[in-house]
């Protein structure tokens, strides 16, 4: 029934959530559950892989909003990668790039986590 799915795979201490299909008010709970699961698994470094994300509605965007503060409080982050131009436009119009790291590829997002932890270690 649902035309949305989330696939998990861990990579270099980063949890990559590959989204597929359409993220709207009906399917938003699936992403919520996925991020909740990351939280319980203490995986606070999250990359959203948007390669196969065909559509996102405002309710879908709300999911990222709902979690970002908690995740950041745990020294983690949600980075969004590899969005299709049309989907990126929705993020962009709302001003999400001001709030989230939105990058071109998943690799880049994972690297940024690695770089981030390196700088923070250096900082310490």
């Amino acid at each position, binding site marked *: 029934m649902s035309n949305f799915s989330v696939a998990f795979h861990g990579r270099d201490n980063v949890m990559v959530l590959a989204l597929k299909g359409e993220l709207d*008010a009906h399917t938003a709970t699936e992403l919520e559950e996925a991020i909740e699961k990351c939280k319980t698994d203490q995986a606070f470094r999250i990359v959203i892989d948007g390669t196969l994300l065909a559509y996102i509605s*405002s309710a879908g965007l*709300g999911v990222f*909003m709902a979690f970002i503060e908690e995740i950041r409080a745990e020294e983690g982050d949600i980075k969004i990668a590899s969005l299709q131009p049309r989907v990126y*436009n*929705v993020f962009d*119009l*709302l*001003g999400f790039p*001001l709030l989230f790291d939105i990058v071109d590829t998943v690799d880049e997002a994972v690297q940024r986590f690695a770089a981030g932890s390196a700088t923070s270690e250096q900082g310490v």
Partner: protein
Amino acid sequence: MQHVSLRGLLALIRSRLQRGVLTAVFVVACLACSAYVVFAKGLGDHPTLVLAILYQVLVFGCYGALWLLMEQVFCKDQPSPSQAFWHLVVAAAVASAIFVAVVTIIPGGFNDDGEPLAISTVAQSALIAPAFFGFAVLLLLRFRELLLHRRTRAAIRSWRLMLIALIVNAGASGLFGVFPESVLNEPVRIITGLVLLVFIAINVFRVSWVVRLSAGRKGLTILMALLVMLFSALLIVSPSNDLQAVDAFGFGFGVPAAFLSTYNAGLHAFAVGAGRFGIIYCLTSILSLLFHLPTTSDYRRREGEMAAIYSLTDLVKEVFDLDKLVRTIVSSSVNAHSATSAWLTVPDPESGLLRPQMVAAHNIQRSVVESKVNSEALYDDAASAQETLYLKYARSDHRVRARPGDSIESLLIVPLAAHQSVLGVLFVAKDIARGFNGEDIQSINAFAAQAALALDNARLFERQIERERLARELAIARDVQQRLLPQRLPTCPHLDIAVLSAPAQEVGGDYYDFVQLDDERLAFIVGDVSGKGTSAAFYMAGMQGVFRSLTRITPNPLEFLVRANRVLSESMERNVFISVIYGIVDRQKQQIALARAGHCPAILARRNEPAAFLRSQGPGIGLFRGADFPELVEVKSVSMVPGDIMVFYTDGLVESRNASGDEYGYKRLLASVERLRHEDAATIHKALLDDLQQFMGSSSRYDDDMTLLVFRWRKATQA
């Protein structure tokens, strides 16, 4: 009504008339018969053959009329079994009283051969015979009701055959009373008598009425049947052989049968046949009643179980009160199945979870159940198997913590399933181990099936009511929300305005509004709350309040957005945001100053420039809740000249999809505006919506709230 009562009246007149005619026939024929008997026998003359045959016909007619008359009088309504016996006891008493009175008042008697001693004996016969024959007829009529208690084709046929045999036997006796010396006399009477006995034997085992009587009624009926049997015996005592024996009891005046025999041989044979039938039927009834006495309670219980099921069915039809229904289910399952206690658990309707909750308990405290029985585990086991679970020794089960005094020794756990889903689980407990037998379980299962249907219906009904209530509420909400939008467009001499907003559901999160700040300035807003439906509608209402109050205090776009963001962020959930475009139309400066907060960019189309999006920076309201918000918002001022067009819309418009899943999209919108930019505002507005409609095709509907606002600057002198 008149027609019916007229018909009723006619029927009444006809039955009265029939009864009158029958009575007249009986009285006249009876008098004639009596006269014949007295004269013919009393005087000792041998009557002529013709006269003798005529007499037989007269007797046949006379007592045939009596039969029909009694059938009319006594068979209007069906008596209960014990009533039937009671009527017979009364009739026997009346016949006995007539008999005693007649033999006491009128002297007479018989010799040792059963021959009348005097003419007065014949007169006695003429009085006693109708009374005893009447009893015989009533006996047959009443027993007919009992035999045909369960009316089947076979029962009616064998009853009729027995009657025919009885009449044939009586007729033969009557006929040979005229020809006593015929060689056929004995054989014919014996054969017809035997045939009659066979039919009696076939009929007397129809005693199905016995089982339905209560124990008390059964005892009473046994007594009455004994009396009727004794009296019936009087009918069959043969005058010649048994006279001595009867006289030995000291009656000293002969037996009724002797009088009947004197009166008419056929009548006597009929009474003997009826008497034999009566005795045997009374005997089988008594035996059957005796045998069924111990099973009475079982039968009562079975009846109670059936009644419980029917009462539930009645309840379904009449009451759609879920609470009353569950109480009836548990109380009926205790009362109808002689259980000790019962309780019902259903999936928690409040929380929407599947955790079962006790909704009714009968004869047991809820707290006792909760502490002694792990209803939840039992619920899961019974519900997942969709089968009745029987704990013969409940206390030894690990899911039951009851102690000896708790009256939970055996426990039935019955899932109530309708349409493949378990609506609840019924627990029925007994205070003895192995308290339920196979029949009990079967009957409780049947009861549970009914209860499940009842529960299902009540649920559906309740849900329907709830749905209607919600629909009403939503209709009200829709009206209220429509009032939050401007009821009239502002009249501006320099600006053409066309606008429309359509929610996807009853209520939505789209918003547009105008406030005339002063003669020169008009504040406007177009907004879209994230999500849709009720929650979006509430935030939209909040946005409306903020706009209406704040725009008069801080009309400046940046200041307005900053303060709106602060105020609204306080009350919005973290995952909700509102995208808006807010602006001020200034007639004097001939410009529109606007700021975008996460909203779809406005389109500007000028006379000699291609249409373009006005994409300034600005995050949606609620995205940034800290102090950094003001730095992120950019205000644009656009100078307007007559003919310039500005188009505002919500994402519902650009994200509208056609049947093949394609979005209407920004490009298409921009091209349409470009194409229409020389038209006036209303035309552009209508053409844009038409274009969208055409793109979507007739089959698609909007699945998001959608708003479209078109401004067109014009020469103020035109106003």
